[in-house]
């Protein structure tokens, strides 16, 4: 027995340590910051001030050039009235109304960016009588289902009057490790109209976490970083080029560290062999894209089922490009891929081989 004392003791120590590290990775939760509902909307105020200053300058110039011109212009009115949202960070008011698909929003309620009509192919539009459209004074969402590469793909074409309606939320309103909740639960808690899973920041120990204008994690990782700016633009950058605080000071409203970037300046940036870390081929995917300022795409594909094979990164990039995305970025996929719209999960999330929603750290939502 003495002969095996060392082997037994070391084996037990190794097993105990492995059990601890497993619990630490997958089970034990630690909250780094609670009550994360606060938002740093100062960047939007700056934008509004700048816009107002620009308009007043333009008006003055117009007055100087054409003294007889009608002075009852709308120069004093903000470009994007924040009527539906809440710059102070509180939850949106319930003044929005969902309109039937047949009804189109009149000119006064249409978001400004809606004037730019893009040629999104409506190859497969299912359930057209259902709640697949949403319009209010600041948000316009059009849901479309596609079937490409043996995969069901859900696309939300989102137009906003301001990027402040594109928000993020942490599970259980807490920033931390192993703090998770279902996308639908977090979305419902935040009165989201549309939501998709985020980058699952809680599963990694590095990678910038900038949410609603606040930098939560400033540890860079090698992953591409998607920056959504307050001015409604989107850019994929390297985390080693800027610190998280620098990005916030540059006007980054949301940042996601997952990737890779799929499309940049309208060109596909992944090859057919590129994959997310170790994910080899077809899988459920979640992606966000930008067509033009404040005109976003949220895409979720099913996968790992007999009806839906799933997409490779290249297929997803091609699809995003076909939707006229100038910039597109891959978020956490696989079992995490979930799209929530108007109070229900509309895709088929697969978790452990079953159609089941997985709990994730964070969501991206419109509301």
């Amino acid at each position, binding site marked *: 027995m003495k*002969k095996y004392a*060392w*082997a037994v003791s*070391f*084996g037990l120590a*190794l097993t105990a*340590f*492995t059990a601890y*590290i*497993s619990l*630490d*990775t*997958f089970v034990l939760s630690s909250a780094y910051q609670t009550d994360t509902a606060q938002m740093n909307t100062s960047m939007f105020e700056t934008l509004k001030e700048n816009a107002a200053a620009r308009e007043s300058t333009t008006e003055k110039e117009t007055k100087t050039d054409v003294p007889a011109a009608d002075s009852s212009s709308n120069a004093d009115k903000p470009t994007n009235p924040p009527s539906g949202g809440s710059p102070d960070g509180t939850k949106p008011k319930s003044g929005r109304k969902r309109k039937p698909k047949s009804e189109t929003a009149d000119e006064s309620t249409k978001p400004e960016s809606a004037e730019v009509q893009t040629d999104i192919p409506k190859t497969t539009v299912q359930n057209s009588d259902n709640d697949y459209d949403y319009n209010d004074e600041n948000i316009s969402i059009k849901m479309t289902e596609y079937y490409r590469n043996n995969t069901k793909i859900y696309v939300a074409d989102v137009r906003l009057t301001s990027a402040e309606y594109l928000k993020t939320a942490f599970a259980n309103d807490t920033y931390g490790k192993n703090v998770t909740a279902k996308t639908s639960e977090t979305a419902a808690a935040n009165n989201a109209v549309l939501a998709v899973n985020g980058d*699952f920041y809680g*599963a*990694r*120990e*590095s990678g910038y976490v900038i949410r609603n204008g606040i930098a939560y994690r400033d540890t860079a990782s090698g992953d591409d970083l998607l920056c959504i700016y307050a001015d409604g633009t989107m850019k994929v950058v390297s985390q080693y080029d800027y610190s998280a605080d620098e990005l916030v000071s540059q006007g980054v409203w949301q940042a996601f560290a997952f990737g890779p970037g799929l499309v940049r300046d309208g060109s596909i940036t992944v090859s057919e062999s590129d994959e*997310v*870390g*170790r*994910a*080899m*081929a*077809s*899988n459920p995917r979640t992606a966000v894209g930008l067509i033009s300022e404040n005109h976003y795409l949220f895409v979720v594909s099913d996968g*790992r089922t007999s009806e839906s094979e799933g997409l490779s990164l290249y297929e997803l990039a091609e699809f995003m490009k076909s939707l006229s995305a100038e910039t597109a970025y891959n978020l*956490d996929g*696989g079992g995490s891929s979930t799209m929530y719209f108007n109070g229900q999960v509309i895709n088929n999330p697969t978790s452990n*081989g079953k159609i089941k929603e997985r709990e994730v750290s964070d969501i991206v939502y419109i509301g």
Partner: protein
Amino acid sequence: MYTSDNKALKNCIGHICAAAFLAFFGAVYEYFSHEVYSYYMIYAFAVPLFFGALPYGIAALKNVTPHRVTINLWNAAVAAFAVGSLFKGVLDIYGTTNSLIIVYPVVGIILVSAAAGAKIARSFDRRKKTVKVTSCYYPIKRKLSE
């Protein structure tokens, strides 16, 4: 050929079994991981195969029997590396990280160094004993001849 005293051969067979188990475990894990793969998981079996079975196999062929302390330390190092590789594979496939994973290679390197130290100390000790025996042999011989 196989005798109960042949520690090297016994250890070689043990490591081949461990490698076979890790290869099987990795294959099953990969099968159910929806084509998400990790080289750490796939090649975890190589650790006991190349750092366990191979050196012990050579030792068995050369009929060298390592000391128990060296064997224990070396086997522990191989176990630390193999389990570390397997766990890293699990983390990779799940898409997560944990900074504590560094403990496995660190412990493995310490144990390998300790095993090497034990081996060196053992051979130094053996040489010392041989020298002692040799040095006392001649006077005895001389005395006998006198």
